[in-house]
């Protein structure tokens, strides 16, 4: 008995040691992604259980970048895996089923917003409940100049063509940053709760302005919204590429043009998120980022140590706003419709929830929060409702308890419980992980680097001694 338990312990230790070896972990990661892709690839929309299966599988794939980044493998390998995922796997799945592409674009949009809000709330500690206003500013900047609605721009022939899109991303950044500074100047004298309430008010103001600026001169088309918003032209090589992949893999794509358009938005969104991550990291890792952290920790001490409070706060506000502005331009073009309802308070709160769930102050945390909350809203709950509907239609009966899904009241559809589940999620987070799922890495950066060095040494020393252990254990392992 004693011998056996020691062997078990040995094999467990060996298993743990194996999980620290880059080669083992790397192959596990590749296998993990491949399995997820194969399952998603084999799913059939006409299958009764399709919503359920895709709810189970797609999050696994979308969360894999975070697992890859946290895994103990070499940096270049992480890069290759994430790049393959972003530029091969997801476009491929999108070609098979464009709803996945749509979902990933939505995740990117919210991730950009979460990263922007994270600068304001996470880095500088300024609680902004009206952040969605800057998103609206970006969206309206593009929509007003391209919409087919009878606005003053349309009537006077001031519209621009879709090819001005890329220029307007920069314009959106600029305009949102200006609005951020203008809103920030009067409100940044306030702190904490007061700041939150005033920013909430300003956020609502922007929405109300958008709602009412159809008179006397029609800028925003009021509550009817701006429809027919322009889109960037799809470059010919992207469409050709889609066709080439289609014939090479034997796919049958129903609508090549809309799909190419979606793919274009996907790549634009990925590029913007990439830029935003780099900008956020560089800011965080600079005197500006340190000043923001200092302001968040103790305003009085920060200003006494020479940090110009108003200027640094305005910079945080403007930076966060500019991210939202850029994302807003993309959002307007993708939706081709912009109306004030898209920019309500609940949206600001959702984005704040993403930052809180992910972990305030960390870039990876904000991204994870955006992925989780967006998937919960747009995939999990929606698909559960679809599943219930599908089962209802065929009069599915749960065996043993003999329950007819048909009898499940429509009021209890999961999609209608978005807010409830949101609230529960936040409460659970506050109780068990108040710092978020991935707490801010910055503070522990130096400590972690030390830990990694120690781990590396352990691995190399263990690798030397490992041979005899493996051979000693092998017979027993085979028996098991």
């Amino acid at each position: 008995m004693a011998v056996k338990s020691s062997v078990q312990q040995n094999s467990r230790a060996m298993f743990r040691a194996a999980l620290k070896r880059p080669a083992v972990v790397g192959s596990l990661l590749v296998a993990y992604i491949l399995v997820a892709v194969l399952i998603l690839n084999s799913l059939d929309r006409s299958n009764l259980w399709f919503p359920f299966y895709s709810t189970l599988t797609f999050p696994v794939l979308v969360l894999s970048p975070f697992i890859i980044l946290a895994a103990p493998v070499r940096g270049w390998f992480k890069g290759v895996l994430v790049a393959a995922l972003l530029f091969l796997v997801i476009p491929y799945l999108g070609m098979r089923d464009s709803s996945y592409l749509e979902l990933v674009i939505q995740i990117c949009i919210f991730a950009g917003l979460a990263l922007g809000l994270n600068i304001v709330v996470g880095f500088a500690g300024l609680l902004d409940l009206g952040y969605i206003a800057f998103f609206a500013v970006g969206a309206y900047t593009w929509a007003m100049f391209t919409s087919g609605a009878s606005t003053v721009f349309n009537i006077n022939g001031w519209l621009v063509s879709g090819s001005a899109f890329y220029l307007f991303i920069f314009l959106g950044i600029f305009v949102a940053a200006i609005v951020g500074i203008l809103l920030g100047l009067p409100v940044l004298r306030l702190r904490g709760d007061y700041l939150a309430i005033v920013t909430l008010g300003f956020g609502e103001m922007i929405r109300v302005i958008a709602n009412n600026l159809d008179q006397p001169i029609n800028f925003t088309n009021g509550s009817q919204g701006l429809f027919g918003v322009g889109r960037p032209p799809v470059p010919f090589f992207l469409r050709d590429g889609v066709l080439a992949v289609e014939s090479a893999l034997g796919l049958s794509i129903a609508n090549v043009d809309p799909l190419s358009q979606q793919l274009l938005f996907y790549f634009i969104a990925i590029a913007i998120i990439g830029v935003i991550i780099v900008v956020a990291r560089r800011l965080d890792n600079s005197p500006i980022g340190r000043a923001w952290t200092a302001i968040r920790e103790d305003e009085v001490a920060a200003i006494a140590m020479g940090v110009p409070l108003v200027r640094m706060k305005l910079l945080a506000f403007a930076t966060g706003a500019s991210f939202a502005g850029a994302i807003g331009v993309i959002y307007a073009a993708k939706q081709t419709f912009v109306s004030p309802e898209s920019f309500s308070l609940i949206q600001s709160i959702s984005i704040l929830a993403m930052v809180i769930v992910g972990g305030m102050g960390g870039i990876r945390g904000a991204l994870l929060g955006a992925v989780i909350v967006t998937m919960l809203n747009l995939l999990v709950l929606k698909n559960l409702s679809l599943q219930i509907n599908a089962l209802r239609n065929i009069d599915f009966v749960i065996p043993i308890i003999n329950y007819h899904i048909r009898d499940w009241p429509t009021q209890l559809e999961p999609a209608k419980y978005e807010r409830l589940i949101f609230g529960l999620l936040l409460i659970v987070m506050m109780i068990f992980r108040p710092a978020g799922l991935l707490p801010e890495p910055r503070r522990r950066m130096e400590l972690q680097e030390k830990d990694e060095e120690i781990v590396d040494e352990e691995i190399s020393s263990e690798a030397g001694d490992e041979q005899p252990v493996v051979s000693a254990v092998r017979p027993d392992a085979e028996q098991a």
Partner: protein
Amino acid sequence: MSSLLDVRNLTKKFGGLTAVNNVTIGIEPQSISAIIGPNGAGKTTLFNLLTGIYKPDTGTMMFDGHSLVGLRPDQVNAAGMSRTFQSIRLFHGMTVLENVMVGMHSRLNISLFNTLTRTAGFNRQEVHVKQKASDLLRFVGLAGKGDEVSRNLPYGDQRRVEIARALASDPKLILLDEPTAGMNPQETVDAMALFRRVRDELGVTVVLIEHDMRVVMGISEYISVLDYGQKIAEGTPDEIRSNPRVIEAYLGRRAAGVVEPETSAEVN
């Protein structure tokens, strides 16, 4: 000899309370001075007025030839006057090194463009900032503790980090608000040695608020005594020790032994 800091007729009222009342103090360059007085005498208020956290009602404050009146705290810091706080106000979540690096803010070239493009100048500055912060930590006796989160340091070490952070902006004058409060006797002796080295090795003028008379008498060359917002005495430690008004302020009139018993009864 011209004063580095020249405060004249400074007054600050909070409603009906006159926290600092017509105070005039001059601080000589390269000196170590102390401001003492019973609790509530207006010492910390005076520091807050000097560093721009409060605005004085009347009076002038000249520092190194420039007026401090109307400057924001960050401008005062940039002008060369830095401080520590009575209750430690470190950036608790940041590492010790980062705390000191923040203290250098007013001496840095902060440009959004350089930060985002990581110019060679930016990288050089970051290396310099890190180097200087570690040097300062070594100076205050915290070599090798730069990577610790400042919250986790023992109390006495946190006080040292605050001093290093205050020194990071290359100040001409440093204001220490009760820097040895809560320290044990050995830590206090070490701290006194540190204050002397700040003056002797870095050439920084030191002004401290202190209650511990061993520190005050042992280290300061010049002492000003505040009571109820007013300066009641100033002079060398020996002069202060024998000044009847000071003894009266600290121990009451009877102990001072200079006033007739019946007058003291009136006061009480």
